[in-house]
């Protein structure tokens, strides 16, 4: 059974249908890149998958032990966040709120989980540093660490490398590969970077208000040639 199954899903954005009749399934441990031009409805579809917007029609089912509030979401960056006064560890730990229930403070175990994720992403040395003073690449690692605190099985990333320089982008991709291969994390990433999709992903989805392509990366390379 898939982690998430979409059946004939239509989602509206500001009154207009952003994506129509989408059917697809996300499977455990699969690394999927979702491509598509601006305005193709990628972000809107992802928000619907997360339960942030209600689909106009169709069904989104969750399965295989996934909990909707345990998806590691990394939204597109906002202007307000860039100079937000928060320590790195405060931001990372905020990924733990879905585990808190009615508790008021984080447990030592939860704090250890946050620290472990910061170590994994190489930002544990920055944990007392102010988020606002970090470089774009470091900030993205902080947000990914937060997503990892929230996630058990599935990460959803909305254009995580959009504002990064080539070196930081490569660093970010290698972390995703590590999470995918070593931790068996399923990843759904929205991106404009075709090259990385073809290199790293198990599977590629091309969206343009509807699903134009959905298949393995090898098949995608062929499909691109045919549609060039």
């Amino acid at each position: 059974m898939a982690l998430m199954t979409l059946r004939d899903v239509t989602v509206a954005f500001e009154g207009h249908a952003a994506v129509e009749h989408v059917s697809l399934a996300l499977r455990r441990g699969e690394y999927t890149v979702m491509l598509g031009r601006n305005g193709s409805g990628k972000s809107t579809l992802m928000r619907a998958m997360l339960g942030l917007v209600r689909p106009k029609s169709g069904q989104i089912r969750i399965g295989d032990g996934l909990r909707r509030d345990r998806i590691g979401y990394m939204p597109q960056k906002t202007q307000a966040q860039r100079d937000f006064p928060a320590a790195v560890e405060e931001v990372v730990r905020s990924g733990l709120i879905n585990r808190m229930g009615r508790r008021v403070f984080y447990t030592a175990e939860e704090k250890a989980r946050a620290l472990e994720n910061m170590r994994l992403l190489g930002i544990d040395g920055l944990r007392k540093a102010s988020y606002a003073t970090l470089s774009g690449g470091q900030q993205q690692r902080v947000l990914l660490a937060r997503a990892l605190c929230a996630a058990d099985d599935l990460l959803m990333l909305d254009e995580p490398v959009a504002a990064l320089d080539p070196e930081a982008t490569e660093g970010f991709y290698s972390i995703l590969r590590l999470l995918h291969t070593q931790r068996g994390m399923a990843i759904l990433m929205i991106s404009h970077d075709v090259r990385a999709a073809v290199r790293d992903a198990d599977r590629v989805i091309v969206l343009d208000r509807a699903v134009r392509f959905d298949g393995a990366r090898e098949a995608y390379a062929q499909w691109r040639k045919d549609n060039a």
Partner: protein
Amino acid sequence: MLETMLSYLQYPFMQRALIVGALVSLCAALLGVSLVLKRYSMIGDGLSHVGFCALSVAAAANLAPLVVAIPVVMVAAFVLLRLNERTRVKGDAAIAMFSTTAVAVGAIVISMTKGMGEVSDYLFGKILSLTDSDVAISIALCVAVLAIFIFLYHRVFAITFDEPFARATGTRVGALNTLIALLTAVTIVIGMRMMGTMLISSLIIFPPLTAMRVFGRFRDVSIGAGIVAVFCFLAGILLSSYFERMPAGACVVAVNAAMFVVFSCVGAVLRRR
């Protein structure tokens, strides 16, 4: 000088002003940290203008001011929050329309009933206008705001830093935002009669911004803003009582502005090291 200032403390109206003012300052600062960082500072301004309208209507109808103003401003807070969320692009313009209309209606009502002479009390505040029920409400308000910041601290941080993420991981963002807006409404109604319509939003905006000049951690900004707010209020009101003709609200804002400059300098020095 200090003796003169302390001698004022024996007057009941002064004691009320100190209690209400310090508590309201603290609440406004804590709520302000979240509002300012979410770019919702305009809401405080809008609510104070609606409050002006509500208070003038209450005065004209000979109703208890708080009984009318608190519910009206709460409704306005709810509406303004929705305006800001739904229509992102025109949100600030909508708030400006909303608040200027409220001021116009309030001014018309006052001029027809009490005469425009009273307007300045509404605009710049009057320390004598505080009653025992203000004291009771501000204590209750303060308990509520502190409870939220202690018991829901991590959730307040999460919705302030990143609403979509907080929502996706199961935080009830709408409920918490509404709670913050409603408490902001009460804070403004209580505070505006002392600080004035024109100046009350400074209690929301100044202390968080001042604290952010120096602190880089959300926890430190929150605690720092609370301390700065209470200190600036007490300093401002003592100043105004010493120079008898100075309005208290204006003095408090002036001290806040000075504190902002001081913190900016301290922050600049700290960053250079």
